């Protein structure tokens, strides 16, 4: 008996949803990212305006001064939708958990010089409040923004920030054998120590910004663009040289996270600045305003972290940030 196997090709009638076909053509199947993120947000028939904001619809392009012909022209280069985002973070979380368990099991903090531990208490632990603020700000962006590509990237970012606040908290607990003395001291420093007040003031002003895109620039472009290279990269390298490589093990996520996040902030800056000269002027104005304000606010912290080199380190980080944004078309 012989069996004849013949291949029969069945072509699907259509390769993507209508909204994606209109955007990307009907030649290629849509990717999961496209299906998950594009055109999910309603655009019409909002009926009533929200009681808390009578001047805007619930989704309203006029909540920012930035004008885009198509709000979906920004695409996340990481292509994060719920699935890919949670898979990527779960992998990183596993590594981080392992590192924390390792440090705890081997009592690695016992080998860290007291001066380094104190530097961590003074500089790193108060950053949990900065991360919490970043979570608030990104929730605000998610709430106010237009387009589900923005709201998804905003919410993922907000959750990342909560995670990082928790990592910082856990470092604080590990330092003291699960006592909260370090965390209390860090809270006190955040609320009262003079070197933190400039930053706290700036961050609290960010909470009440009206324009969500300005908040995006202030928080995700400028503040992160200064704090992460300055403290999680340069300051940690300094600590490592002084015998604190254990700390670097525990903040590895922050370092990786920042490198990853720069990819989408760059893409966003590029797309928005390219759209129109008005957008570019707005972006440049906001970047100038917030780099000036935040670099002044961070200076006392940089000086506490690096001593006499502090101001210099901050100037370098600021120059790197402005240089990177200039490459995306946002010149200050």
């Amino acid at each position, binding site marked *: 008996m012989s069996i004849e196997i013949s*291949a029969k090709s069945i072509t699907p009638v259509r390769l993507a949803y209508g909204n994606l076909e209109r955007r990307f053509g009907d030649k290629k199947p849509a*990717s999961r990212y496209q299906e998950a993120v594009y055109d999910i947000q309603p655009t019409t028939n909002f009926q009533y305006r929200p009681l808390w904001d009578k001047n805007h619809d619930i989704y309203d392009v006029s909540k920012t001064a930035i004008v885009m012909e198509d709000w979906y022209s920004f695409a996340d280069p*990481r292509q994060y939708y719920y699935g890919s985002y949670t898979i990527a973070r779960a992998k990183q979380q596993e590594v981080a958990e392992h590192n924390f368990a390792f440090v705890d099991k081997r009592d690695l903090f016992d080998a860290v010089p007291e001066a380094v531990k104190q530097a961590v208490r003074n500089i790193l632990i108060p950053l949990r409040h900065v991360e919490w603020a970043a979570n608030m700000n990104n929730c605000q962006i998610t709430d106010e923004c237009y387009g589900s590509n923005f709201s998804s990237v905003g919410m993922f970012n907000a959750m990342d920030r909560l995670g990082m606040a928790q990592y910082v908290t856990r470092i604080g607990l590990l330092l003291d054998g699960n006592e909260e003395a370090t965390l209390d001291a860090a809270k006190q420093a955040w609320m009262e120590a003079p070197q933190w007040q400039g930053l706290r003031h700036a961050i609290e002003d960010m909470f009440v910004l009206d324009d969500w895109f300005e908040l995006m620039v202030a928080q995700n472009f400028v503040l992160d663009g200064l704090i992460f290279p300055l403290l999680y990269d340069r300051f940690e390298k300094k600590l490592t040289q002084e015998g604190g490589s254990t700390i670097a093990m525990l903040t590895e996520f922050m370092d990786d996270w920042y490198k990853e996040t720069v990819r989408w902030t760059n893409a966003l800056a590029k797309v928005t600045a390219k759209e129109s000269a008005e957008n570019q002027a707005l972006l440049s104005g906001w970047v100038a305003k917030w780099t000036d304000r935040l670099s002044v606010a961070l200076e006392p912290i940089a000086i506490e972290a690096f001593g006499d080199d502090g101001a210099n380190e901050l100037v370098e980080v600021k120059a790197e940030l402005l240089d990177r944004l200039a490459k995306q078309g946002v010149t200050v």
Partner: protein
Amino acid sequence: MSNKKNTVFLILQDNEDARPIIEAVEQDNPDANIQYQPGMVRMEAAGRLLVNRVTVEENLGREWDVQELHLNLISLAGNIDEDEDKFEISWH
């Protein structure tokens, strides 16, 4: 494809994982002939076919190890030059 002897090809499964690779081949090898067949995609070129890690990563949105190509590989013809940055098929 006049010189049949010179033809190299790469056949991948037609699925979600292989799509970024197929698109990368399309971008990096404008002369390649890409045939969609039931369940698989056959990519043919005269002399040389290149899969570039950087292009795949751009399409995929994450880091990509060139060896991941093998997960969806059905068949290929040619001599292979594979390193961290590329997977190249040609006849020596």
